[in-house]
């Protein structure tokens, strides 16, 4: 039925089965949109956040998807600036994933901040003392860049590319893509850093507060490094998932290996930097703030196991698997390691957001607990559903993996 829209040489499921696949996701999106409407129309009392627990599920997941979405900027940087041509095999998928992650994060932020009709206030009346101003500017600008990077993929659709005006615009856009890759890298570095810096400057939250290096707290650099490290792992993991769900080979093993090598090397540097940062914080920063570091781990469920899990289990272990040539050539180790690396950044963002706010900071404070309301959960699941739907449509109608056609061809005779 829609075969004229599917790229030549690509085999896709029958249209009916594709629609059936979309139905549950569309239902989830519908429920989430209703929850978002409640939050916007009735107010943030629909959530379980309050003045003391002001960052909840939304901010935690926003930070996580923004970190995972870094695969788009980093793959673009490696391809267009560092000229790693092998990554052309995954750049389209990385851009779509990046666009989904960032547009989803911006949508959730819009619900969280509220008053969507006043979105322009942040640009016209910026709070120049807030790191979030820089985050807002960079997020919206980078989302614009991602939309521009997404556009050529859409214009290369089998039907659209038959229109000369679309074709020439796609061609000229492609020629200037390196500029967008550079701009994306610049913006990503700054907003990933500012999101980390946001926690590092919280002097009233000794668990998150860090000393400054140059003008920024160490978390500024750790967030940049961790996002750049797991971005390629997320591209690898999502490519593997899409390959399994669709039952098709999408990229050559060498591409996975390169992504793993980049991710593993950066993750090793990150684990080293994070370990040094943690040691400085334990032995110096927390005492300077008058708090014994052991007191941070006295409240269940956040024991020292969380620190071990974050740095060793989900940091050092995947870093070694991805960085060592022998282990990364074994797909039974490579793929789980990529998933572990992604889980590592999710745990890091959880610790920085939820654990930071849950811990008492003053003598009369108590340990806070927070469970997200169904509206919070549903509106975030709507973003997941939106992501699955957009990616599914892109995978079906756009040529996301240029090597797929070649890999699908009959073996050499």
């Amino acid at each position, binding site marked *: 039925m829609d075969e004229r829209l599917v790229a030549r040489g690509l085999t896709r499921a029958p249209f009916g089965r594709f629609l059936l696949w979309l139905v549950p996701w569309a239902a989830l999106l519908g429920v989430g949109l209703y929850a978002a409407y409640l939050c916007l129309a009735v107010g943030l009392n629909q959530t379980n956040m309050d003045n003391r627990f002001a960052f909840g599920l939304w901010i935690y997941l926003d930070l996580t998807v923004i970190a995972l979405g870094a695969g788009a900027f980093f793959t673009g940087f490696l391809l267009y600036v560092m000229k790693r041509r092998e990554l052309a095999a995954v750049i389209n998928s990385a851009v779509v994933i990046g666009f989904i992650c960032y547009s989803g994060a911006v949508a959730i932020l819009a619900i969280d901040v509220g008053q969507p009709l006043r979105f322009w206030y942040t640009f016209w009346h910026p709070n*120049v003392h807030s790191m979030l101003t820089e985050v807002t500017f960079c997020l919206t600008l980078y989302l614009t860049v991602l939309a521009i990077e997404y556009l050529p993929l859409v214009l290369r659709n089998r039907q659209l590319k038959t229109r000369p005006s679309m074709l020439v615009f796609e061609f000229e856009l492609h020629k200037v893509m390196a500029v967008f890759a550079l701009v994306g890298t610049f913006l990503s570095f700054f907003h990933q850093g500012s999101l980390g810096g946001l926690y590092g400057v919280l002097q009233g939250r000794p668990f998150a507060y860090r000393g400054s290096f140059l003008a920024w707290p160490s978390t500024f650099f750790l967030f940049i490094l961790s996002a750049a490290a797991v971005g390629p792992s997320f591209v690898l993991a999502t490519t593997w998932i899409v390959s399994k769900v669709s039952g098709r080979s999408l990229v050559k093993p060498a591409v996975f290996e390169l992504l793993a090598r980049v991710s593993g090397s950066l993750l090793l540097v990150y684990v080293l930097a994070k370990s040094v940062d943690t040691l400085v914080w334990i032995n110096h920063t927390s005492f300077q703030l008058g708090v014994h570091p052991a007191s941070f781990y006295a409240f269940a469920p956040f024991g020292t196991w969380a620190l071990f899990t974050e740095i060793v289990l989900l940091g050092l272990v995947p870093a070694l698997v991805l960085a060592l040539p022998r282990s990364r050539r074994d797909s039974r180790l490579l793929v789980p390691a990529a998933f572990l690396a992604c889980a590592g950044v999710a745990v890091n963002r959880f610790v920085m957001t939820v654990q930071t706010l849950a811990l008492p900071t003053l003598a009369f404070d108590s340990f806070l607990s927070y469970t997200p309301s169904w509206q919070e959960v549903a509106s975030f699941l709507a973003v997941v559903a939106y992501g699955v739907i957009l990616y599914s449509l892109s995978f079906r109608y756009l040529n996301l993996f240029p090597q797929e056609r070649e890999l699908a061809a009959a073996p050499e005779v």
Partner: protein
Amino acid sequence: MFPWSPEFAWDATHIAFFGALYSVLATVALTLAVAAWRARRDAREGRAAAIAWHGDFHEMPASARACRHQLTGEAPGRVCENGFDCRHCAEHPHFEELRRHDATPDHADHFGFDLPLDRLYHRGHTWVRPEADGTLTVGLDDLARRLLGTPEKVELPRAGDRLEVNGPAGRVTTRGKEVRVLSPVEGTVVEVCGEGPSATLRVDPGGLSDLRHLLSGAEARAWALRELERLQRAIGSSELGAALADGGELVDDVGAALPRDRYDALLGDMLLEP
């Protein structure tokens, strides 16, 4: 803008911070505008066909972009980067010198399909025959005709239309699948003879025509063998492979023996429209 914001101050930090962000915004907007302006210029100058071929060519796998000198052994493993237009290839003259020029047989060759050697061949399965009056006759080769079978619709250029090398020279719809045919030469169509896939075009090149990018003689035979190999790979072993492998005749309508989606891919592979 910012002076209206109560917290804004004209100090170095604020100016640097907002200056950087607005510079990025200006860069994004300017780059986008440049791309749009260039696109408009390309459309005005009629470069759409060349751009379409550029995109198609680079979408093809390396195995489909083998250099002609790979086929004849002068440059093993070499992949073409010039859109099969050797006139713009700096290496082509060098490889031509290396090539051992076999005596070209004057009889028609047969590989399961006809390959008359009195003409020149384009990689997109069209042929060109220079005529005594300076015009060029252009047609689809036998392999392409057998691939296309009996088409529902054939759109050909009309007399007076301008053709460009690797630009479109027609569109064919067969078994519900549409594919364009590449022009092997540039010039003005002066006559369309016949109908359907057997139709030929007479083209006036407007002077001496440069046909260095086309294949002839031993090169054409090497290419035909390579195309047969590609066809064999594309259709697999179950349907038609045996007929090809044992030197038999290629069926008149290849599409009849293939599932729809594989036929579509095969048309794209062989007629160079991925």
